[in-house]
Every structure is written in structure tokens, then in C-alpha cells.
């Protein structure tokens, strides 16, 4: 099936098999490999991208369902010379270790902070409940979110 999807500002028409998951389309057809796969049951959130502004686990959609949509992946979040505030906060707070869950975490937190610019720590924890990290114990991810929100309420002293 022919689909027309814009990713990080680049529109393209591709012919895909109907059973192709959006995440496979992003990774294999578009070769944007910053979107990761960490499970096969939509638990881990490593594949989270913004579809028409909404944080979506891209393994939970078929590519054909995203026909006509505008998608932002982790590759489209930063500019060449500067990181997004959420990415910058991850860097400052040591919010990543292996970096595998990081793209999904960053995208999810962008949405969490957009909807609630000054969340409590508990709201941040709830906001990333659908994103698993095995390295950090979430502590510094939460600290990064609080920093990005411009709040001094959480994280390491």
C-alpha cells in the first residue's frame, strides 16, 4: 500500500506491506534508527514517537494507519548545534546510561512537560509509567524532567 508520511519535516511516499508496523517503517524504510525496539507487547516505550503531536508507541500502529500524518522522531528533536531542553537536562542530570530507552523517554517527557509545564515529581513518575529503563533506576530521569520543567523540587541535591 502507498502511504505518505512526513517525518522530521521530510515528506515521502512509500509502498509498504499492510502488516508493517510503524516502528519498522521508521527504522527500516526511513532508516531512522534512533527509535528503538525493546519489547514485542507495547510495554517498554523505547519506540515512542510524536504522531501529529501525540506521543505514541510506534509498535502499536501499522504504518498504514499513520498515512497522512506528521511524525517527529528523536532525530528531529535537536538542532545541529543545540539540544532540546529535555535532552540538555538528561545530559546535566546523568539521565541516561546505555541510552537505549532514552529516545522514547525524551519524547514522552516532551509531551508530559508540554501538557503540564510544572509537574510534581509524582506526576513525572506517572507520566513515564509506560517507559521502562533498566539502567538508571529512573532517579536521574526524574531529576532531568524536573530540571527541564525549571523546577527545583526533585532530583539529586
Amino acid at each position, binding site marked *: 500500500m502507498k502511504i505518505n508520511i512526513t517525518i522530521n519535516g521530510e515528506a515521502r511516499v512509500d509502498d509498504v506491506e499492510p502488516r508493517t508496523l510503524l516502528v519498522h517503517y521508521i527504522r527500516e524504510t526511513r532508516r531512522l534508527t534512533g527509535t528503538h525496539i525493546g519489547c514485542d507487547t507495547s510495554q517498554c516505550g523505547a519506540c515512542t514517537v510524536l504522531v501529529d503531536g501525540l506521543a505514541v508507541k510506534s509498535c502499536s500502529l501499522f504504518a498504514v494507519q499513520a498515512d497522512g500524518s506528521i511524525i517527529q522522531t528523536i532525530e528531529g528533536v535537536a538542532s545541529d548545534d543545540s539540544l532540546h531542553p529535555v535532552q540538555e537536562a538528561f545530559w546535566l542530570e546523568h539521565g*541516561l*546510561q546505555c541510552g537505549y530507552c532514552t529516545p522514547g523517554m525524551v519524547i514522552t517527557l516532551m509531551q508530559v512537560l508540554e501538557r503540564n509545564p510544572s509537574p510534581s515529581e509524582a506526576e513525572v513518575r506517572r507520566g513515564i509509567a509506560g517507559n521502562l529503563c533498566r539502567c538508571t533506576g529512573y532517579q536521574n530521569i526524574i531529576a532531568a524532567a524536573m530540571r527541564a520543567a525549571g523546577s527545583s523540587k526533585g532530583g539529586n541535591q
Partner: protein
Amino acid sequence: MTTYTGQSMRRMEDDRLLRGAGQFVADIAVPDTLHMVVVRSTEAHALIDLVDASEALALEGVVTVVVGSDLPGTLEVMVRPGIDAKLGAEHPLLANERAMYVGQPVALVIAETLAIAEDAAELVEVRYNPLPPVIDARESAKANNSLHPGLATNVVLRTPVLSGNPHAAFERADRVVKGTFSVPRVAPSPMEGRGCIAYYDKVEERMQVWTSTQASHEIRRQLLHVFGENAPEIHVVSPDVGGGFGQKHHLYPDEAAVVLMAHRLRRPVRWIESRRENLIASHSRGFVGDVEAAVQNDGRILGMRASVFADLGAYQIHGSFLSPDIAGKRMTGPYDIQDLDMQMLGVLTNKPPTGPYRGAGQPESSIMMERLVDRIARELDLDPVEVRLKNLIQPEDFPYTTAGDITIDSGNYQAAFRRALDVAEYEDWRAEQAKTRVRDNGKLLGVGVATTASGSGGSGGVSARSSFARVTVDGEGQVTVDSDVSPHGQGMSTSFAQLVADQLGVVPEVITLQTGDTDKSNPLGPGTGTYASRSLVIGGSAAHSAAKEARAVLESVAVQALECDSTSVRFGMGQAWDVHDGSRSISVGELAMLAQAEREPTASGALEIEYVFTLPSSAFSFAAHVAVVEVDPATGNVDFKRFIAAHDCGVAVNPLIVHGQIAGGIAQGLGEALVEVVEHDANGNPSATSLMDYSMFQAEDMPVVTPELLATPSSLTPTGMRGVGEAPSVASPAALANAVMDALAPLGVSHIDLPLTPERVWKAICDARTQLNG
């Protein structure tokens, strides 16, 4: 001299990972690649009557279907000196004639696309003739015959520890305190599963292998073993690795199959593990033990006896014998207990193989030991803190040789323990607990402590304690460090750069760390990868030592170039200058070229210094954790009030990274104690096959961890560091288990098997109340 070492520098590797520009194995695209899918056993124990691939082979795009008889061979298994291990259960690449666990590879389907391979795999018919499976390790140890025809029994490992005179200790004891403790099977579950891509390079005439591993050199060596006599040359590269935690230290049958098939087919072959496969293919822990201590009424432990069973699963992979061996030898933890009779058996069952997971035997022994210490305190009506203080190795007793014949060079365990208690406000919580117990307002407050010693750098032979480093300084002053250890989240690009920058007098930003490539880091020499909290302790010490040697070379040239004496030369910011004449300076790059002109030519033309560092013995760190929890008796739910983690990991290179390791290790340790478990039913079917039923910690489950760092320098490393990667996973499950059991003590609950899920806790509370009410 330490401008950068000791600083909480933010990590140099983060920028590309944050931008999604990392390159993990699944991100690598090789043209013309074939895709492999593994057909796995659905039976825990069965004869395989037939594997019919005809329908699968008929599908367009299927290249081949490989069955057991097509791909003989077994994995190499490590047997350390001094252990009594029976070989004969090495993991075969594919099941042949019999399947031994659910998830065991039975056949491989290789096709032009992943979709075709997946479709074809469903068409492979395997006819099983089921046999009764063996599930329980204790039962298995008693059996008169073995699961494997070539073996006499299911006990394939005995690693006893006998020290002092335990019999006499028990004779003179005031009391004997006993416990039976289990440490369930868990799945290490790195967020990135395993994966491997391989092809035969016709120009270089060798296999090129990318694999998600902690130890590319080890994988290369183990692959050579699998190929056997006519092995090709093999080049292994580990790209970015999305977590390992011990699971990725070994070669697995499916990974070996990728390389063998790519060699045979002369086409690139790719296999990327699914989460389901990751959860059912290999596990860790799985111990149960009867432990008893001979104690005096004042809480002093005179001696111990233990009989522990380690469930090794149906086959061994490379490191399967490691954790039981370590658990046995380190049973006494940080305590001064010389009289020990430890029986440790490794036993076969119809389950997936086990291997090391963060802590490798030490969480297993610590959970048993720390639970026993708390039980001693309860039976003697002493504070658990008092019992620990009475038994911890004293600062003046170092170097101390344990009952397991391990020498610990130095430490100050009391100081770290007291710091943890102070920060936790331990006495206040005890007072609060006494009040709430009287009030009985429903929620049960529990306070738990654990004190643990964890090795770093391995306790094996010289090669396990050695690492190679090459420091290369070019004419521009750019520095490259090659190392045979490789990162999967530990931040080595930064910590290694900090160590090297201080030696060379350059800024860390000019230093690039190259790892994971068997071409670039002494493929023939030592180097076993990243595990056992060794990467910075051994690999970092090698880099530090190579850089120190390079500095000496640069300094001798600087003396000539600056025409001053050596005491006047200063290094910093990539320059050397005469302290008495600031106008005279020369760059580190120029010095490197001047020095290199007088040395043996190098391929790069740059100054190259190589160094092999051997750690004399394992550098033990110490951890004291304090957990304060509240248990809801109505639901069995455990809520955290506080979690304090004091770690003495010697001189920290980068405290920011150390804090990250502590929080992460605690998340895994607490998950293990609270929710994580892989159970197998009577038919050997695993309870957890997806992240829906394997419950790893989510953000809302994790308490706020307060880390406290102490820095008793190690005498074994040039900068005084000790490893820290595993220590938080060793201490935290024991502290949590003790806290929950402390909360439940007034109800008369003295034991619940881990993990302490709400259901188990609630049931134990109900049972205790039923008993109380007669």
C-alpha cells in the same frame, strides 16, 4: 595532578545517544542480509521424533532450514581451578533428538526477509514425545539418574568451602539460628535484547561479526571454540550495547548459529532477539539454601554451616558455574567468621541455563546471610545493627583473609555503616516504629539494614584480572585510548578520559576511547571484557598506567625542548611549559612527535604506549543500605519511606556516574526482592514470557535513593578506586527483605519466599492472623 579525576563531569558519550545517533546492533544495515528466526522448543523435556521442514522450505524466499543434525557442536563452558564440575551438559547449538527446556533452539529458518523467515518458522513441524520434566533443584539433586545420558547424576557442580573448625564452633555456641532462604530465578532483561550480524569478508578472508556483547574478545574466543579445528579468522565488534548486566558476557547458541550459518552460506546473516526470547532463553539466580549459624548470646557469630542448591537449568553456558562458586566462597560477606562448612551444589533441571547477573553469586549469598543475621538478632532480642557491628571485620584486621580464602586488602566498614545509619536517622525510625506498633493504626513500619562486601575485578586467574590499554598521542595533541573492556551504560568514554587527561595534561575532550573491537585492543593478549565491576578498576587502571608512562616519555622530551630540568616542567591544557619561564612552552602534540621520532616507528606515526594492568586480587567495596518501608496489611503492598545507600568504593573517578550506578543497581535489586521472578510450572512452562508478566520496576515503583559515598582508598589500584557496578544490587534486596520482615515481625511472620509480592505478603499476614486467632 587530579584536575579531572574525582569531578562529576557530565558524560562525553551522551550527545549522540540523546540525539538517537547511537549505533546498536539492530541499527546496522548490511546489504544482501539474510534473516534468521529460531524455532524453539515448546516442551520442557521431550524426545524429538521428527522435525519436518518441507512446508517451510517450499515458501518462496526461504534459503534454508537447519535442524540439530545439520549443526552439531556445543558451547564452551568455563571451569575454574579448584571446583569439582562435571562436563557433559554443555549447551548444544541446536536440540538434537531431545529437547531439554521450553525455549531451547530446535531449528533455524533463514530467509530473504524477516517476514518470510517468521512465516516459515510457523510452518516447521516438530513432533515431540514428552518426558516428565525435572523442575525442583532439591528433588533433582536426589535423583538416582541424570537428565543427560552421559552423566551419572544431576549434580554437576560441587564447590564446597571448609574453613577452620565449624564443628567446634557449633559445640561451644550458646544457640544455633537457622533459616531456609530462596533467591528466585530472574531475567536480567537489558532494554536491548541480544543480537548478532555476521558475514564472511572475502577480501580479508575472515568472519566479520557485530554482536551485542559485554566482551567482544571472549565472544571471539568462544566462537573459535565452536568452529573447532577449521575455524576461520574472526573479527568481533560490539557496537553500542543497550545494557548487559551479565547476560551479555557469554556466547549463546543462537548467536553462534548466526556466525556458523553466515560462514556456511557465504551471505550476511542477521538475528535480532525478541523480548520473548530474551525472557525465556537465559536466567540468573535460582538458589535455595539451608543456612545455620552458631552464635553467642551477645550476637557474635562463631561459625556457619550451609547447604545450598543452585538451579543451573538443563545445560551450561560459559559462565554457568561462576555464580555458585562465588556465592559459596563469599558466603560470610563482610563478617569475621572463620569457621565455615559450606556445601554448594549446582544441579540440572528442565529449565533454561543460568548465568551471572549483576553481582554474580553475591546477591544470592548476601540475601541468605543478611536474612540470617536479622534472624539472629530477632532470636536474641538484639538490634540487627548491634549484631552487625559485633561481627563486621574491624579496620585493624585488614588485610583480612576470609573463610572462602579471599584476601580483602583494606576497608572501614564501621564508618560506612554508621554513616548510613546517621543519614537514615535509624534511631528515630526505631522510635517511630515503637510508637506506631503501640498505636496499631494499620500500616506496619519496617526498618531493614544490610551490610555487604562486593568484589571488583574478578577473582579468577591472571587473564580475568588483566586488561590491555593503548594510549596514542598524535601531532595535533589528539589522544586515542584503546581498551579491551567495553561499555553498555557505564560511561567509560568519560571516566577513562578523566584518568588519562590528568596524566597527560590535556583536556578530556581531546581523548577518544575505542572499545569492543578485537582488532584494536590486543586480540591475542588478555582481555575478557566488562563484568565483575572490573571495567574501570582494571581497564581504567590499564589506561591510567599507559598514560602515566606516556607522560614520563613526554616529560623527558619536554626537558630537552624547554631546556630546563624536570622539576620545572609543568603540564596542563595540552601544553608543557617551564614554570620559571612561562614564555617557553610546547604542545603535547609536538612533544609526542619529538618523542616518537626517537622510538620504534608505529603504524599511525603517533606516539603509542601499550600497557597490561593486572589487578593483584579482587578490590572489594563495601555497602550499607537502610530501607524504611510501610506495609499495608490490607493489600500486602510495600511502600518506601526512605532508602539510604552508603558505598565505600574507594576514590571515585566520577561521582555523578557512581551515583547513577547506585540508583540503577538498587532498582534491579529492589525489583528482584519485590516483584521479579521467573517461575516454571509442573510442566516446565515459564510464567513470564513478556514484559506484561515479567514485572521490572517502573518509575512509580522506585524510591528516592539517597547515596552516600565514602572513599577508603584501595591499595590494589593506582588511583585507589574500587568497583561499584554490582555492589548496590548486592545490598539492596537484602535490606528490603529485612525491612519487610521487620514490619511483619509483630504479627509473627518470620519468613516469606522472595519476591515479596503484595499477594505473598498479604497471604502471609492472613495466615499469621488466622494462627493468632486460633
